């Protein structure tokens, strides 16, 4: 089969291919690093919209009837857009489109993605998806208020805000996003499988790459369910088919639909929706592992276990989806099956948490900003994971379903936790992009504000959930079983949320300020071993590696190797070039270093 051998991009160092004009360099760029930054900036910008929306929801909940511009419809629209933007357009896009793009070629030792043009198309298609999504704020009726789960029949019936243009734009935007993701995802997977540099075996890849790799495969297999259900719902809405629509009496009128299955949509949505949780979690797992290893100067504990745990979680995530549907009236045996699989996922997941802790244990922990966020992540993730174990059981979920306990759970586990890792990752890799550190003092402030603020927001929510405060409610009204004190709790949550929101502005300021004025970092400031820090130019230029691709001789975690002179050995250092301390005999009388 060797007649199919490729001319690796490595052997095509053709200077004439470097882009020169502003347009080809920064706008229609095919360089994975530029595309990564385009993805990141777009994702963060649209994420700020989602943050503002959450602030407005909190204002309404904390101080009902004070803000006239938030009516019940607007509240539902905010909930929906906030949830969808956060999950898809921020986290998925930033973790895979942003970090995936930036880190994959650099960490596996490739010059670029295997199909750079497709990669560029991926970004611009994503950009289009964002525009279509945001357009729904400006059409008549506004964006859809169906909740991020978009359950039919209500999503497309009158009574739900944005039932005409809003829901269609949402579905169209999702479909476009999926096309964009597919173009990018095919690139990521193929690059990781086929374009690794010499010596970079799969089992030497940093865990970041493993996380991104498995998450991308999950995306390629899970997004089809969302795509198909979006298509079917568009048909139900626009041409009056009845895929998801049973015979219905709406506002006293019999509708033309009959015979469809709303439950079918729930199955399809969660067949996508649960793996989606891991699409954002797995890259985060990977990145946090690397951050912890680098900043604790210790090899990751149980590398191989970590890899198999990622793969196992990825596989299992396809057989647990109906734990989101316990209240849909499913057969108890199904409930039993899905509860069991859900609890099984806890095994590889807990294993990962133990391994992070054991990596820290007796490590040489540097409490840098990335490390602070990584430790914060271990807290929030464990916390959200434990409530997940509770909700995975049918009998516990039934009373808690659709209460604030669920809101608290998923914010801890898939909202705050990946965001913590994103912050860790941004503080960690910022010097690679810019050659400068993010400001440390602002960073500390950002961390403590976010970490403590998060707990101030979400801990009380668990309690509200136990009281029975329902999710997606504009106001609690005068309900007997909810005590007065719940309202004061809500007010305090809102104050915390506003503070957390403002703290993020400091982070944005830090990003912009440090890009131009930050302290110079020099090469490889964290003394990391992985390849992205060992490029010919710093920060890496177009083509990444200059004349020659690096050769890899070791895994990514040679930190504090016994008797080695430095406490880290980069992956591309040959065994001969490793400097060792002298042997015991000749070492007599010297200070141990």
């Amino acid at each position, binding site marked *: 089969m060797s007649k199919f051998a490729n001319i690796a991009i490595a052997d095509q160092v053709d200077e004439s291919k470097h882009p020169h004009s502003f347009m080809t360099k920064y706008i229609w760029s095919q360089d994975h690093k530029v595309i990564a930054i385009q993805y990141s900036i777009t994702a963060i910008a649209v994420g700020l919209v989602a943050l503002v929306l959450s602030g407005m929801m909190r204002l309404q909940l904390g101080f009902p009837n004070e803000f006239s511009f938030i009516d019940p419809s607007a509240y539902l629209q905010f909930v929906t857009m906030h949830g969808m933007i956060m999950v898809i357009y921020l986290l998925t896009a930033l973790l895979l489109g942003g970090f995936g793009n930036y880190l994959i070629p650099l960490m596996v030792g490739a010059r670029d993605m295997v199909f750079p043009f497709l990669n560029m198309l991926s970004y611009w298609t994503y950009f289009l998806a964002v525009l279509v999504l945001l357009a729904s704020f400006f059409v008549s009726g506004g964006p859809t208020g169906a909740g991020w789960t978009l359950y039919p029949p209500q999503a497309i019936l009158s009574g739900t805000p944005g039932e005409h243009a809003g829901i269609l734009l949402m579905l169209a935007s999702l479909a476009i996003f999926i096309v964009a993701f597919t173009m990018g995802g*095919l*690139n990521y*997977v193929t690059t990781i499988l086929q374009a690794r540099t010499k010596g970079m075996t799969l089992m030497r890849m940093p865990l970041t790459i493993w996380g991104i790799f498995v998450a991308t495969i999950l995306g390629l*297999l899970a997004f089809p369910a969302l795509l*198909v259900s979006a298509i079917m719902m568009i048909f139900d809405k626009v041409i009056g088919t009845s895929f998801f629509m049973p015979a219905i009496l709406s506002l006293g009128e019999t509708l033309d639909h009959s015979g*469809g299955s709303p439950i079918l949509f729930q199955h399809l949505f969660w067949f996508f929706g649960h793996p989606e949780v891991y699409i954002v979690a797995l890259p985060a797992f990977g990145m946090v592992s690397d951050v912890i290893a680098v900043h604790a100067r210790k090899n990751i504990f149980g590398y191989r276990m970590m890899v198999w745990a990622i793969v196992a979680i990825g596989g299992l995530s396809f057989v647990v989806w109906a734990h989101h549907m316990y209240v849909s009236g499913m057969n108890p045996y199904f409930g039993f099956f899905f509860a069991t699989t859900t609890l099984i996922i806890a095994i590889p997941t807990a294993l990962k948490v133990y391994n992070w802790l054991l990596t820290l244990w007796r490590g040489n922990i540097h409490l840098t900003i990335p490390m602070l966020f990584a430790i914060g992540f271990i807290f929030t993730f464990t916390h959200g994971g434990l409530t997940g174990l509770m909700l995975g059981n049918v009998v516990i979920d039934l009373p808690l379903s659709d209460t604030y306990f669920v809101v608290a759970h998923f914010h801890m586990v898939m909202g705050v936790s990946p965001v913590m890792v994103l912050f860790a990752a941004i503080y960690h890799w910022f010097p690679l992009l810019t050659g400068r550190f993010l400001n440390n003092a602002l960073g500390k402030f950002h961390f403590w504000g976010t970490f403590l603020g998060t707990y101030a927001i979400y801990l009380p929510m668990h309690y509200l959930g136990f009281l029975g405060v329902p999710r997606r409610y504009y106001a609690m009204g005068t309900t007997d079983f909810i005590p007065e004190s719940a309202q004061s709790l809500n007010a305090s949550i809102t104050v915390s949320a506003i503070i957390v929101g403002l703290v993020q502005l400091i982070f944005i300021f830090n990003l912009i300020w440090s890009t131009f004025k930050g302290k110079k970092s020099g090469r490889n400031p964290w003394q990391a071993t992985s390849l992205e820090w060992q490029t010919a130019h710093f920060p890496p230029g177009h083509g990444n590696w200059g004349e020659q691709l690096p050769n890899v001789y070791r895994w990514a975690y040679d930190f504090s190797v016994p008797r080695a002179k430095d406490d880290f050995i980069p992956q591309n250092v040959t065994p001969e070039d490793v400097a060792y301390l002298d042997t015991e005999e000749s070492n007599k009388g010297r200070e141990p270093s």
Partner: protein
Amino acid sequence: MSGNKHQNKDTSSLQSVVSDWSADKQSFDMPWGKLMMWIFLLSDTFVFSIFLTSYMNVRMSTTAVWPSSSEVFALTIAGHHIPLVLIAIMTFILITSSGTMAMAVNYAYQGNKQKTVYLMMATALLGASFIGMQAFEWTKLIVEEGIRPWGNPLGANQFGAAFFMITGFHGLHVSAGVIYLLVIAKRVHQGKYQKKGYQIVEITGLYWHFVDLVWVFIFAFFYLW
């Protein structure tokens, strides 16, 4: 002497199969484009599986009767009522086109440009005639039987909805395939792959065989059930 226990993959405790597969450079001995096509097709398999699962689901959820496939899909030719005749021809054509495609790939690797181009054009032509017949079938269902995605005089609404959606989606795949074939055939003809090699023909072939394979499932689920 050296502390690098990780540099040598022979010392790994994993089986040799795994270490072979996870060795450096390429995990699969094939061009990048080909692997990418495989992964895309895997993803597309999920798309079609979900379409077909949804179809089965609504077929069970609807309370109205499902039209009998030997009735709706029958043609009356010269006074004879022949069930499934059109679809038999369509299926035959599509499977034949897989044959011509396979031959095109074979000739491509032999470096026989002329034959490759002819066979790819033949494949495209067969694909186009499939689309033509599908258009004919749709017209018959819509005009003669009065079936619409939103309504069906013969019973369940979901029949028209699922049928038009899924065969339409497949038809789009075939149409895209025809265009893809023609573009690549033209480029082969222009000699653009003389130096690079002809893997692209095989990649095109993969897509085409996939579309044919999907048809077999659609055929089984719609016409034989």
